[in-house]
């Protein structure tokens, strides 16, 4: 199934509506990502970003279209492997860190993959080291700062050694230093990443390519800088630079 030349992510003609709801949330959405790429997914509130993201590891059952992760289609029978491949970092770290210690949470994924003992411990240590959170291992998630919680949440999926990292609004609730540190961390990780955000400076700092999702479709796909320079395009999709921010500087 998996071919080395397969794109990291290939989404084709995805459409979705919530059962019982009238409007469609996703409409003929297509997106392709190559291995090693970092792509920013921009879009206003209610554009369908989170719904789209939940399709990538099959948390929402696909209705129309296809989602293929590194050559493996997201469908019944593949879900266990898909969830290993797609590391999903949710918007609120308190949703992601549900156990009593950071170490337990980072070990949760590997445990579900069937790893035990030294092998699992190694995964946990590596993941914590990768995000610079080794010192947080025995802390309770409730006691972490925003930046610490975000890094711990990232470690909980890195320990599953995913092929594709998906981050939903990773900068929400972070202070400026936390934001900068997270941007640096994501760049050094070097994995394939889809970063869902409406934090435009953050998108520029981390991703060379950006796409805009609005009303369930990809409406723009370009290098991040050129896309963000098109203020008229941004304005049409309820996106704008922070007040007083000058892209030229």
């Amino acid at each position, binding site marked *: 199934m998996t071919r080395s030349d397969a794109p990291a992510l290939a989404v084709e003609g995805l459409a979705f509506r919530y059962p019982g709801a009238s409007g469609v949330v996703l409409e003929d959405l297509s997106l392709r990502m190559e291995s090693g790429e970092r792509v920013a997914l921009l879009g206003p509130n209610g554009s369908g970003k989170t719904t789209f993201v*939940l399709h990538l*590891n099959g*948390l929402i059952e696909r209705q129309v279209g296809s989602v293929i992760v590194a050559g493996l289609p997201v469908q019944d029978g593949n879900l*266990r492997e898909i*969830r*290993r491949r*797609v590391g*999903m970092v*949710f918007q*609120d770290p*308190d*949703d*992601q860190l*549900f*156990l*009593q*210690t950071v170490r*337990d949470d980072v*070990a*949760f*994924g590997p*445990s*579900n*993959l069937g790893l*035990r*003992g030294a092998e699992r411990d190694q995964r946990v240590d590596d993941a914590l080291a990768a995000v610079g959170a080794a010192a947080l291992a025995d802390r*309770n*998630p*409730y*006691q972490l700062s925003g930046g610490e919680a975000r890094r711990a949440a990232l470690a*909980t*999926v890195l320990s*599953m050694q995913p092929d594709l990292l998906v981050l939903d609004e990773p900068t929400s609730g972070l202070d400026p230093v936390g934001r900068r540190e997270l941007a640096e961390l994501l760049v050094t990780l070097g994995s394939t990443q889809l970063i869902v955000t409406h934090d435009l400076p953050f998108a520029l700092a981390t991703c060379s390519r950006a796409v805009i999702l609005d009303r369930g479709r990809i409406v723009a796909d370009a290098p991040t800088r050129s896309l963000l320079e098109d203020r008229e395009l941004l304005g049409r999709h309820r996106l704008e630079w922070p007040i007083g921010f000058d892209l030229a500087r």
Partner: protein
Amino acid sequence: MSGSHRGNLRRLHVAVDSPVHRLDPAAELVGTVAFAVVVAGTPRHAVAVFALEAAVLVVVVVVSRIGARRVLARLAVVTPFIVFALAIPFVAHGPRTEVGGVPVSTEGLWAAWNVVARTTLGATAAIVMSATTPLPSMLEGMARLHVPRVVVAIVSSMVRYVELLAAQLARMRTAMVSRGHDPRWLWQVGPVAASVGMLFVRSYERGERVHGAMVARGFTGTLVVSDRPAVATADWVAALAPAAVSAVAVVVWVVGR
């Protein structure tokens, strides 16, 4: 009816090192329950046995190095029952005894003593356990005692989120107070109750998101995994010693009467 004593979950554990802290949590749980059962089963007239049980507990508290003052502070939980107990001799029926010139029910006196002794001893045992066992270890202990894994997982989620929700509620209360809302009477309770309703909605939605985060990492129904070996015999012996000593004392008292 005050809930203020139910403080911070994380502050229950007293982080010092002692033989009691090092006890296997599974053994300590069983030992605590066994001790509470023996205390509850000690005949009310066996004052000497209660004294022995208290002495055993004092030894455990000293060995555990959690500090008598902390134990006493947390024993405040049982104050309402002590107050209630003091009322029993006056309410109870039966033959009367004079205490300081006031006629009180003899059996009522014994009943009051019974409530005070059992409540204090049982509560102290529970306090020692939660002070010497961090929450994650306690959950692991429950899992190893074959408490159904769903129950352990539910308790684990509850313990994880209770402070978060309490903090959310407190922030809503702060936002109300800062807008001049200072309810003093039951009919002014509307906004406060509404905030509790909102908390339920947010909690439930968080539950759905947490479930998503669990499933995204391959959740199969188990939250608490334990790699620890079986409980060592020495731990069983140490943990059950207080209950065993007390049980022997009860038997000796009953037989010797």
